[in-house]
């Protein structure tokens, strides 16, 4: 099994928890990360559009989807940011929504770097 990413201690990504979840199956782990890499950008774009359009219902639904996806990957901080976004969208708190989205984008950018680094390590 490839070593845990160096930055995992920062809780961007709880790698050990994820390993337990996939029962140490590296092939499955890579499959899941590839699914994330393929689906996430589109989901985030849709979320950004919904927030821009002030569509609270859609923002809440997309945040919920993202939260589930991130939680499954043990991306603790990004999942928490998505949960906050979902809460705000449900409360129709439009003023705070954009800031929460920025926060989510920052967290997922870091997460994406971690994932890329891990996937490169696996390929090497």
């Amino acid at each position, binding site marked *: 099994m490839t070593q845990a990413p160096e930055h995992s201690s920062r809780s961007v990504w709880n790698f050990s928890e994820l390993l337990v*979840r996939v029962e140490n199956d590296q092939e499955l782990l890579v499959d899941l990360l590839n699914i994330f890499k393929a689906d996430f950008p589109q989901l985030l774009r849709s979320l950004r559009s919904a927030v821009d359009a002030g569509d609270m219902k859609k923002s809440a639904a997309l945040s919920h989807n993202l939260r589930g996806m991130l*939680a499954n990957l043990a991306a603790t901080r990004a999942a928490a940011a998505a949960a906050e976004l979902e809460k705000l969208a449900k409360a129709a708190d439009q003023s705070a929504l954009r800031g929460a989205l920025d926060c989510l984008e920052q967290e997922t950018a870091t997460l994406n770097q971690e994932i890329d680094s891990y996937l490169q390590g696996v390929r090497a």
Partner: protein
Amino acid sequence: MKILIAEDDPISRKLLQKALERAGYDVLAVENGKQALEVLASFEAPRLALLDWVMPELDGPAVCRAIRKRAEQPYAYMVLLTSKDSKEETVVGLESGADDYLTKPFNIEELRARLRVGERILLLEDRLVEARENMRFRATHDPLTSLLNRGAILDLLNRELHRSHRENKSTAVLLGDVDHFKRVNDTLGHLVGDEVLAEIARRLLSAVRSYDFVGRYGGEEFLVVLNSCDPAHGPARAEEIRKSIAKPIMTTKGPLSISMSFGVLQSSEWGPRSLEELLHGVDTALYEAKAGGRDCLRMAKPPTESLPPAIPPELLRHER
């Protein structure tokens, strides 16, 4: 065991699928509630299901509610997967008909343990259904011959008579009695008598079509109902049945020559009369067959004028 996973998040779906395949399940995965409902309502559907709460088309609780309305299907054990964790939402999920729920992200070992609980519940349900079916069989069948018992064959005959009258068809009713059966019991014993009755039941069943009915009407009396039987063919069909019986039966005391006498009635010739009147008519014809030398059949003729009140068949037992 087959299991359905309904989950729109592809990561969660893949995780679940892999975890359950490792546990030996035969996994079927779909991505929305509508597909889940189609699978669960299909023939030989999985009886274990993991349903995500929030899904496109139809959410998990809606799938549960729809499945619980279909009482005729075998019980399905459904577990809701949810990231909702308030008590109110848990109550809503369980009230929709779910058997259990798990909060995401789930622990694999906990998930498998909960599914094993589901399997135990389904096993228990299967045993209860089997016990109920056995009881139903015993309540409607004769234990010696496994034929329909008197109550069950009369119910079916009554329904068939109404149907054939409604559809302007004819039902042939045969009441048969084993000739000199008392002698078999008296000389060879009741166990041989039972062997004879069981063999006659087998012969009667193999002489009729799959959609006809055969029942044990009394001790050595059998009732045969030939559905949609043209009056032109009724007597010939009855004669074939009589001949199929009139062959030696191998018993533990050796081969035995056995015959039966039959009263035969075509419902179309009798019009809309009560079951009691028809039974009285066919019983009278059977009596005539006995009086006419046995090992033969006699057709029941409808009375030209209205019958006196029917005598209950129980009161018409004769020494046969």
